[in-house]
């Protein structure tokens, strides 16, 4: 019964989301596209950051490589968008494997910093490449069809989520969680930790890159500052952590909620919107470090004591 109800709720939500471009005004559709992209990025981050426990600050690199890969394949090699998109995704996944080999040997802070450094280095290199249009950027063929991009972004989010759902129930997914809980113990249990981590990194990169590719074609003009935007890392991490990293639907909930609130705020007082982001991060991490998903499960039992218990658990 419960399962049936859940399935029904999911199907209804999905149907409503699909219907948006036909009923909602253009601004809502545009807001929808960027929210769906951010949700995809949050989901991608959740694979490496949530399930595997490796706090990556390098998601923007994959997003940017995806959008540049797609753009270059379309402009210089005249490939159709669908194939170019896959090319972009593969470029990012291959890059993730190559970079992951050395970088995923690092743990904790060191991994976080190395990825943060990558997020600075890669755009600097791209802005010196002739094929990528240097600092000036690239212009893609113009397609004015927001509904199409909306459905593409939605399809990508669904594909990402289904993949994560599948991973979370697979041997691979349990391996990743074992690495998160105790990497040495996981290795002792016979998990090939290096291979698992690199695979997780590459899968995360692939989905983030597809989001970047769709974004490039939608926005039609890309430059290093916009596509490798370092604040994207922050957004995807906050959305995933706020929603509940390592849960299938948590990061989506986080992305929808935070994008919605920040959109409403920025339409009222624009300078307060990003300030709000900062405050939400601090408050959310202090009061509900396990995300909305955990809050949802345990708040009903504990009430307000839920927050004080979280604090008691972690304070000095």
């Amino acid at each position, binding site marked *: 019964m419960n399962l049936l109800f859940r399935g029904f709720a999911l199907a209804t939500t999905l149907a409503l989301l699909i219907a948006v471009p036909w009923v909602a005004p253009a601004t809502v559709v545009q807001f929808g596209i960027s929210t769906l992209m951010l949700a995809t990025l949050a989901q991608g981050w959740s694979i490496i950051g949530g399930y595997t426990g490796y706090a990556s600050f390098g998601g923007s690199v994959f997003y940017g490589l995806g959008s540049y890969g797609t753009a270059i394949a379309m402009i210089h090699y005249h490939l159709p968008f669908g194939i170019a998109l896959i090319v972009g995704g593969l470029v990012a996944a291959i890059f993730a494997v190559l970079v992951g080999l050395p970088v995923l040997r690092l743990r904790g802070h060191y991994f976080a910093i190395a990825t943060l450094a990558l997020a600075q280095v890669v755009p600097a290199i791209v802005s010196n490449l002739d094929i990528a249009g240097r600092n000036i950027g690239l212009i893609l063929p113009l397609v004015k069809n927001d509904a199409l991009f909306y459905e593409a972004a939605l399809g990508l989010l669904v594909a990402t989520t289904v993949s994560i759902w599948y991973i979370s129930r697979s041997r691979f997914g349990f391996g990743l969680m074992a690495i998160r809980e105790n990497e040495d113990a996981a290795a002792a249990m016979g998990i090939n930790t290096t291979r698992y981590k690199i695979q997780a990194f590459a899968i995360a990169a692939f989905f983030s890159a597809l989001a970047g590719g769709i974004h490039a074609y939608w926005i039609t003009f890309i430059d290093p500052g916009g596509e490798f935007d370092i604040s994207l890392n922050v957004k995807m991490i906050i959305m995933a952590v706020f929603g509940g990293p390592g849960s299938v639907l948590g990061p989506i909930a986080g992305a929808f909620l935070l994008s919605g609130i920040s959109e409403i705020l920025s339409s009222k007082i624009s300078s307060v919107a990003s300030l709000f982001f900062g405050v939400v991060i*601090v408050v959310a991490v202090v009061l509900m470090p396990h995300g909305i998903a955990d809050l949802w499960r345990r708040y009903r039992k504990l009430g307000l004591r839920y927050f004080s218990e979280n604090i008691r658990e*972690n304070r000095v």
Partner: protein
Amino acid sequence: MVLLWQVLANGILLGGLYALMALGLALVWGVLNIVNLAHGAFIMLGAYVCYYLFALYHVDPFVALPAAMIALFVLGYTLQRFVLNLIIRAPMFNTLLVTFGFEVVLANLAQMFFSADYRTINPGYAGANFALFGATIPVARILTFATGLLLTAGLWFFLLKARLGRAIRATAQNLTAARLYGVETRHIYAITFGLGAALAGAAGDLYGVVSQINPYIGGSLTAKSFAICIIGGLQNPLGVVVGGIFLGIVESLTALYLGPTYTDVASFGILVLVLVFRPTGLLGRTT
């Protein structure tokens, strides 16, 4: 040859300031195991304290140094005491996120109150310089270099000799033992974070003398400070001096031979290489 010597001199002088920038980050990291992503924002605030004291009351930046340090100490102490202490035992990622939240809040508040305009601090000696073996050495830079090294040495002696400094080192080495000897942990944590912020404030004050400031310089300064900590290693304050000067020279050389757009590639490329091949830093002991 003169050009190379000039570039090396620039790099070394910049390195003294870099060392001071990274020192507070290294202190907080080593003692509290918090990588403070708001460190650059603290530096930015220190620079604004200096800027407003200079612009409104004509206070010399080197005289304003204690004011910037005290203001940032109070801010750091408060943030650690009332926010970070609540989550200090959570997984490291949570402290990373919270300090990131601080950075966002501080940068946006700074933009609201100070505006996004670039500011410069121009004391009377801003253009003064002298020649040393053919290289031009700006007076302001040599003063920031000396102050940076002086404060680094000061912190070293403080940690080594002072009672409070010993309590901080004891907490870093063994929390339980320190508590048993009567160290008040919450207070020591807040003092340490406050000291880190005060050093950032001092670095900001000096940064304002040699460079332009705006509310958004924090992010890249945090990243630079990281790079310096990693390159030098966290074991002793000498590490950040070596790391700072090393990074200063690398940046100057890259700007000369490859072009200014490659300075970030070079410094972060070195960071990644050091992380992968020598994670304990250039000075660190290999086990």
